[in-house]
């Protein structure tokens, strides 16, 4: 500083203030999130409640058999985290992402802290990245909690036993553990898509509670869409499909086509929604006292590109995979049922200490018809009736069993045994150690909607 002839001090030319490094901004955002009681309670709940839930349900006499793998919760601890994954994809993850990502920008609007934050960080871009990464971190911690906690609850209460896959094949505990882990990792993709939608809502709608509601509303919309008889290409083009497609990891060979498409679609949604949120955020004028959400621009910059993405994805999938129908065809239903039956028959054979047979020896086939053969023999519905035929070595007469199938529009089916009683007509079988659940009485299966996976 130099003295002037008036005796006052000169103002030395100051350097432009530096922007706060991203790492510090990220840490600050994380501190803010973790200091909220709501987030602390969520973390606690995600790391404790699933273990208690799985342990409690596994000890009940009635199992949640309408949930995938729910009927196996007595048999193995690895069914618990899969039941939890089904529940999480439907309810927990949309809600968790909305409470974290859906509020991370809106909270600053509510608190009136944007100007303070901008003056401190001096870069809207870094604020956006820091907030996105911090909310992603918290969401990952929550998802990890759901997965780990439910696995611990299942293993502690039931044990590390083999898991029956969706094709009836018995998966060794190590194999089951790997697939369970992979299934949860796959579910991260649609979770990221929902989180990005949450970010977009939080940026676009300001302090309005609609921003918070956006991920659950989108997730609900996707679930409703998956229940409708939509063409396969539309179904796969929705970002929530990966919440269902992980089922394909539990068949041999894995139904990886729909899973990979679902993950790719989810990730594209995550990237696009985040980019749109970023564009809206960096264009915002933080000195405008009248600002309360992006209003009309939220629709043009936010919603329209996502609608265009959906249309484009449908077109690409329709061209790349010749699957514009329901994807549930008679031959695929018959194949899936026969495969699952053969594997489960071997399981029942071991339970009853009968002579071992192989799937090749059984030569299992299924003949299925829908609506007693009336109308098109494809599509979802609970009016599928199948007759399964198998052979035993040294016995000339083929065995036959009847199943009623309830096939969902997502390809999942429940096969309900209709007799004969000794094979699949009763829920228990009498073993040398007492009564045991009959694996052929009721079981879950999965019809791959695409025609891409080779049949095993």
């Amino acid at each position, binding site marked *: 500083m130099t003295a002037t002839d008036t005796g006052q001090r000169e103002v030395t030319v100051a350097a432009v203030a530096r922007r*706060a490094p991203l790492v510090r901004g990220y840490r600050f955002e994380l*501190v803010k999130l973790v*200091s909220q009681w709501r987030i602390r309670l969520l973390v606690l709940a995600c790391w404790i409640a699933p273990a208690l839930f799985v342990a409690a349900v596994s000890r009940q006499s009635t199992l949640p058999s309408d949930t995938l793998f729910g009927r196996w919760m007595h048999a193995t601890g690895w069914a618990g985290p899969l039941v939890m994954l089904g529940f999480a994809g439907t309810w927990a993850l949309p809600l968790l992402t909305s409470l974290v990502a859906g509020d991370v920008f809106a909270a600053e609007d509510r*608190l009136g802290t944007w100007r303070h934050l*901008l003056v401190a960080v*001096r870069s809207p871009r870094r604020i956006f990245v820091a907030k996105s990464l911090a909310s992603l971190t918290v969401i990952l911690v929550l998802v990890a909690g759901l997965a780990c906690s439910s696995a611990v609850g299942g293993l502690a209460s039931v044990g590390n036993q083999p898991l029956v896959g969706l094709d009836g094949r018995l998966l060794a505990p190590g194999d089951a553990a790997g697939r369970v882990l992979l299934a949860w990792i796959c579910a991260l993709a649609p979770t990221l898509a929902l989180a990005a939608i949450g970010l977009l809502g939080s940026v676009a709608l300001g302090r309005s509670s609609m921003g918070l509601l956006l991920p659950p509303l989108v997730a609900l919309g996707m679930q409703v869409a998956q229940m409708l008889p939509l063409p396969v290409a539309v179904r796969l083009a929705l970002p929530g499909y990966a919440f269902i497609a992980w089922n394909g990891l539990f068949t041999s060979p894995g139904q990886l086509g729909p899973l990979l498409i679902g993950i790719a679609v989810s990730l594209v949604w995550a990237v696009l929604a985040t980019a749109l949120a970023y564009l809206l955020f960096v264009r915002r004028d933080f000195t405008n006292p009248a600002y309360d959400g992006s209003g009309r621009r939220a629709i043009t910059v936010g919603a329209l590109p996502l609608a265009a993405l959906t249309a484009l994805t449908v077109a690409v999938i329709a061209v790349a995979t010749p699957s514009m129908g329901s994807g549930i065809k008679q031959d695929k239903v018959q194949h899936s049922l026969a495969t699952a039956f053969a594997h489960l028959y071997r399981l029942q054979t071991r339970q009853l200490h009968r002579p071992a047979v192989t799937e090749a020896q059984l030569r299992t086939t299924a003949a299925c018809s829908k609506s007693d053969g009336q109308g098109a023999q494809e599509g979802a519905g609970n009016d599928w009736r199948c007759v399964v035929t198998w052979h035993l070595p040294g016995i000339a007469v083929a065995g036959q069993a009847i199943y009623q199938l309830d096939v969902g529009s997502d390809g999942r089916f429940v096969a309900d045994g209709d007799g004969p009683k000794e094979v699949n007509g009763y829920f228990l079988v009498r073993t040398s150690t007492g009564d045991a659940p009959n694996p052929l009485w009721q079981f879950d299966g999965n019809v791959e909607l695409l025609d891409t996976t080779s049949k095993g």
Partner: protein
Amino acid sequence: MDALHAVRARGITKSFGEVVALDGVDLDVTQGQIHGLVGPNGAGKTTLLGLLLGLAVADGGRLEILGRPVERALAVPDGVAGFVDGPGLYPSLTARQNLAALARLRGHDARTAGIDEVLDQVGLTDVADDRARGFSLGMRQRLGLAAALLVKPRLLVLDEPSNGLDPAGKRHVHGVLHRLAADGTSVVVSSHRMDDVEALCSEVTILATGRVVFSGPLTKLAAENRELDYRVRTSDPVAARRLAADTTGIRLVDDAGTRQDAEVLVVRALVPALDELVAGIVRSGVAVRELAPVVSPLEAAFLALTDQQEAGR
């Protein structure tokens, strides 16, 4: 660039859509000076303070802060701190955590950033570890000031810093600002409270509908002002009234019907005429016990200038 000015703005304009928030605003803030910014609601004070903090860039004109031209948003020089529209605090963090987070963002070690010192300066040491959620408006204001002090500012920009402060708190904050100014920090303060501005500021800029209607020392504002109403309490109100009626340039304000105190005389005059009246009263052997403007010169000027501006729209 004038080396003595922490802020030098020429012809600043800023619009939000069709709303013109600032229309050719000039502003000079000398180093080590507390400069008041007053104006009615919607005059553009907050927008101007936002520009000084770098929250936005002006649509037109030239702005220099601490000797450096500001040409884009968030590119103000190091050493500028403050708040507009209230201090930004996170209610789930304690006062100390709020400051520590800010210190870390700026690359300082929270343990050596002087958090205890600034908390002590604003009188919040006792509640340093309480969450900001439970703070009163006055405490929040003080914590906001502490956050600004943490960066050892050379230009401090404060929007209504006395809002919510009790008299003791206000005196405390005023003391802090005076000490900062004495140490060479320039302070720009906006306020609706004219008594605050008069107590704090040596210079003032009055804004109305986005334009500067006055800028300069408070003394000049008072001198430039037209007639003011003064309360005169004397030992002989009857004699004083007679003398006032006989003095050129003095008008008696006929408020006897509403006035509670019969000893008080209210006259409207310019300063020279008032001086003559007081001399006359004293010469006639009547004691002058109280002499004060009914409204402060600043408030009177503010009302006159802003009314004039509003009327001219």
